[in-house]
């Protein structure tokens, strides 16, 4: 077991190192000069421009040799410093990201968890209820097969524009400033609902179909037939099947939770919801390489941590992995 985790950890560390290095390379080898871009927006005359350029290059730490930049990057990283945003200069990237993250969590955590619970339960019921399987499951297929963008736009159009029940842009009303009050919370909730619902629906369909198929597969497996031949009540066989079918769903859940930090790009774009996804879009549009780099780094760390958590969780819930480890050579 120690050896297993030791090796896993090594792989994670290597992956992290590589991913961070690639992430560092992105802004340096992308076409265009971020500082030039920024300066070009401010209409300066040539001399001022020269001075400003020098200043910013120093501010961004671009005036030292590449290898030094690389080392500095790691050093800063371990101090929780991801550099300075270009387009929101002089705000630190970390701060900009931290401002967006709560919206992602607010949006995705409930959508992922609720859709997981509801989808698995629904799928398990559908697996043994013919009429449900025949009526509502096709809906699930349609939901997951719908291009996500369409569903978002459709919801926004029906509930936002035609019915006018929900707002379709932002995280709260533009007239309000974030503060703790009933009015603000109500506005927050109203703006949250449509993006939440669109993610929930798509994920729900996916979980339900996955669970239903897994259960049916388990009920057709050899051990289920054997139990059946020995006259075991359906109830117990279903219990076994559910337990086995939920294992891959747990992995799926953990993976989903891991990418919460990546936000929900399309949803956030459709509903102008200010999470990481929306931030990445803005960073790209403004050629803010340091912000892009910061966002990616943030996502890398999140995904790696989540994967590590899955590895641990799987060892706990599935004896096959636990036992498989001891059998492994190398």
């Amino acid at each position, binding site marked *: 077991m120690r050896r297993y985790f030791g090796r896993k950890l090594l792989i994670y560390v290597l992956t992290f190192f590589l991913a961070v290095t690639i992430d560092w390379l992105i802004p340096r080898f992308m076409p265009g000069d971020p500082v030039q871009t920024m300066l070009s927006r401010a209409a300066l005359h040539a001399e001022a421009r020269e001075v400003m350029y020098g200043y910013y290059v120093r501010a961004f730490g671009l005036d030292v040799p590449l290898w030094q930049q690389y080392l500095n990057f790691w050093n800063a990283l371990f101090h929780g410093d991801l550099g300075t945003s270009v387009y929101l200069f002089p705000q630190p990237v970390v701060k900009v990201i931290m401002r967006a993250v709560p919206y992602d969590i607010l949006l995705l955590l409930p959508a992922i968890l609720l859709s997981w619970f509801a989808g698995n339960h629904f799928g398990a019921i559908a697996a043994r209820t013919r009429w449900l399987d025949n009526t509502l499951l096709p809906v699930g297929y349609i939901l997951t097969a719908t291009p996500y963008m369409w569903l978002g736009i459709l919801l926004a159009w029906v509930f936002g524009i035609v019915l006018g029940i929900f707002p379709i842009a932002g995280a709260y009303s533009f007239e309000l400033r974030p503060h703790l009050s009933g009015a603000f919370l109500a506005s927050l909730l109203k703006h949250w609902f449509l993006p939440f619902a669109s993610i929930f629906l798509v994920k729900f369909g996916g979980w339900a179909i996955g669970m239903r198929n897994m259960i049916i597969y388990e009920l057709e*497996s*050899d*051990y289920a*037939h*054997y*139990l*059946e*031949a*020995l*006259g*075991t*009540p359906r109830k*117990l066989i279903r219990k*076994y099947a559910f*337990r*086995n079918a939920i*294992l891959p769903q747990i992995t799926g859940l953990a993976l989903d939770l891991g990418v919460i930090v990546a936000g929900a790009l399309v949803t956030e774009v459709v509903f102008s919801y200010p999470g990481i996804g929306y931030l990445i879009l803005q960073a790209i549009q403004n050629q803010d390489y340091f912000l892009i780099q910061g966002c990616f780094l943030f996502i890398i760390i999140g995904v790696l941590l989540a994967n590590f958590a899955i590895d641990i969780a799987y060892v706990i819930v*599935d*004896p*096959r992995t636990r*036992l*498989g480890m001891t059998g492994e050579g190398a």
Partner: protein
Amino acid sequence: MSLQVEELTVYYQTLKGDVRALEEATFRVADGEIMGLAGESGCGKSTLANSLILLKPPMRLVKGRVTLDGEELPIHDMERMNSYRFERISIIPQYAMNALNPTQKIGKIIADLVRWRQVDFDDILPELKRRLDLVHLSYDVLDMYPIELSGGMKQRVVMVLSTLLNPSLLLADEITSALDVSSQKAVMEMLVSFRGWEFVRSVIVITHDLSILYQVADSILIMYAGQLAEKASTVAIIRAPRHPYTRMLISSLPEVGVKHAERRLTGIPGTPPLLLNPPEGCRFRERCPVAFEKCVDVPPFIQIEPGHFVACWKEFETNARA
């Protein structure tokens, strides 16, 4: 008493129509009898075994009666059959290696299974341990997951589990096909011991490999394409087979002692008919060297000597003339 099967006819319902996998099977298995059931792959052996214990769609009971120890089995009724399964009639499935839920400890699986029989696991534990001992398994296996066991160990666990409640009839479906020759022999001998220890009373041993039956079976039933061809004592089947198919089978077998792979039921020209639209009459007709006009009717399965049943018009004629 033991098992009495009458006119058992079971089809598979498919989109293309009925697959007529078992036609009018009538035979008996006596108390304490180990009956071998042999025939080529696809001839309906598993269909017959499953009809006795787990008859469910796409299988359809067309007609027939099954009586076990004088009591009619409600084979058509999935729910009512539950009280007979495991307790009175049990099975060691073909896939014994995968028959145990991979995510549950073996002890837990067994405890779950017996609990529904109003049997307390702790009460049965001493007997369970004794039986594990008899099949050379340490009872540490109870605390293990199926993947921790070798294939052979899993099979022995399944054998012990299937017979734990001392059923009257045990069905063993191709339990040796995945094993090497020496393990095959050991498993077969274990089945005989199970009867000796009275864990089971009668056994039906299903195989496509006749030779493994020689040492263990009291009688052998030969099937061909969904029909019963011949049933007789093992000695009679080997020494004096009466059905043309059995004769060809026996003569195509090399001497005992030759390698497993060469002892399959092969060497007869032609292939068995498809059971979706089988030919009328005797289904062996097209491969039979002595077929004649009468064979377009289905030959009845008739006792021509005490304990020796055959379904063949030619044989009836020869018998009548003699």
